[in-house]
């Protein structure tokens, strides 16, 4: 039997998400044969996007793609027919919910929130950062088709050189029991935190939502792949939307560059940013724990330093 990896392809308004496409490309790197599973009323651009990213097939299940129980029913049926080597799901809110349901339906094992996947001799192994980033664990599923939720933040962007994937349309699924009444996108255009290659994060030191404007200006100077994030207190206080919180109870990001501005470096925050390739810490306290994990540190007042960095970045182009 040849290996096949299934990837759940989340989509919004007919367009697959960047994180799903990046996961398809990662799956293609591990395995010749990648099948994307799209649960959505319409196929939209999925065949072209998934194919370009590296999928050979798209299984399209016409159903409400925002209902985790329908996604789980569709995935379970496809797994039963095609017995893939594993099912990879982006570790997003909806992906986590759907993956958990699939695992329960199949009675197999879930490898949750993994940061790296390997496939050798038909066996999938996952690496996870655990206990607030203080440990690395390698795990596998004991028997049955493994289900994995994968942090997509650290993945390289999706490939773009494959031809369109073949589409196999499944029977329409039952109506959803839950109904999305309203979708409220995060204000402002630009990349999502998970997809950003540069994250400019602010903490309690920002002092309020106005304080964050220096970070937005730096992010804008750093280009379209830079996004603003925050520590818990800043999100708790409502200075930024809650979906910008990074950490153990917030987003897990793994950008090329992470700028921590006025963030002390508590373990719960580090848990969300520990996958970052290069870390810059700006803090007025030279003893701040964040300096222990930073590649570059600057001691001083961020309200002076950050605008100066913005000026230096702008001067480069």
């Amino acid at each position, binding site marked *: 039997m040849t290996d096949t990896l299934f990837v759940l392809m989340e989509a919004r308004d007919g367009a697959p998400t960047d994180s799903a496409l990046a996961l398809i490309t990662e799956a293609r790197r591990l395995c010749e044969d990648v099948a994307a599973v799209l649960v959505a009323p319409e196929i939209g651009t999925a065949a072209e996007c998934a194919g370009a990213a590296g999928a050979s097939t798209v299984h399209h299940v016409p159903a409400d793609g925002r209902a985790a129980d329908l996604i789980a029913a569709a995935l379970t049926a496809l797994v039963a027919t095609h017995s893939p080597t594993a099912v990879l799901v982006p570790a997003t809110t909806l992906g986590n919910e759907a993956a958990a349901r699939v695992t329960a339906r199949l009675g197999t*094992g879930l490898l949750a*929130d993994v940061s790296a996947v390997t496939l050798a001799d038909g066996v999938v192994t996952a690496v996870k950062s655990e206990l607030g980033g203080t440990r690395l664990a390698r795990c*596998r599923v004991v*028997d049955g088709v493994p289900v994995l939720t994968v942090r997509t933040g650290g993945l390289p962007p999706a490939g773009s050189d494959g031809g369109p994937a073949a589409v196999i349309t499944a029977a329409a699924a039952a109506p959803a*029991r839950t109904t999305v009444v309203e979708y409220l996108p995060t204000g402002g255009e630009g990349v999502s935190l998970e997809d950003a290659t540069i994250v400019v994060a602010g903490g309690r030191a920002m002092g309020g939502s106005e304080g964050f404007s220096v970070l937005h200006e730096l992010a804008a100077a750093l280009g379209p792949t830079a996004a603003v994030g925050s520590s818990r207190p800043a999100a708790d206080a409502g200075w930024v939307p809650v*979906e910008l919180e990074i950490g153990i109870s917030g987003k897990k990001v793994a950008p090329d560059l992470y700028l921590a501005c006025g963030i002390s470096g508590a373990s719960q925050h580090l848990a969300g940013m520990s996958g970052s390739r290069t870390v810059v810490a700006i803090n007025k306290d030279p003893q701040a724990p964040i300096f222990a994990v930073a590649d570059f540190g*600057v001691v001083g007042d961020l309200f002076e330093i950050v605008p*100066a*960095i913005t*000026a230096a970045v702008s001067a480069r182009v």
Partner: protein
Amino acid sequence: MNIAVLVKQVPEDLGTVQVTEGRTLDRANARAVTDPVGKNALEAAVQLAEATGGTVTVITLGPAGAKAVLKECVSVGAQAGVHVSDGGLAGSDALTTARVLAAAIGRLGAIDLVIAGARSFDGGSAAVPAMVAELLDLPSVTAVTAIDSGDAPGALLCTRVLEDGHERVSLPLPSVISVDEYVNTPRYPSVKSKLAANKAVFEVLTAADLGIVPARHAAVIDITVPPVREPGVMITGDTVQDTADKLVAALAGAGVL
């Protein structure tokens, strides 16, 4: 509204958890506390029960000490607690945990709503609530930041947090929701309610009582300590702008800009 709440006990400081030869976690040196997000789940349940009438029953799976979770929850508004305690369930994976919790919920009779935390402080797989929903064949909404019960009878309007924003979802009852820390601010117990909770008696169940045969689905191959990052470079300059210029030059030199 009759509500079941799932709350687990977690180590207060994840750094103090030891990893044993047998690749399991030794929590002996780690102070155990109630999962912070579990307190939000309990608070959400108590608020809904206060608004609509009804009861709140807390269920926890864990060793003998996990009874402290039930006491704490009763001191802040739960009426009853169920403790699933069984050495054979130690170190259970998410699916086994969910099977146990679903079976325990099943014994409670007619339940309108199950509330859990979105992501536990230690395991953090963000999987158990949706697994429980699947096992009970109920709809679910996870990562809820606001609950509105005024929408229509027999339904809730939940706001959930997504990667790219928020979604408001209408959810029929009975169902399962998981809440995150932003949903509310948990109340504190009073001295009186603490004393009363100390006298509370909880039902204690084993896996056999629930008809569950402990099974392992996921296995750990090894656990290591991640490589420590090399100490970084501190950047200083004559002026703030000079420092910033040096930093940007260093980042460009490192190939990240």
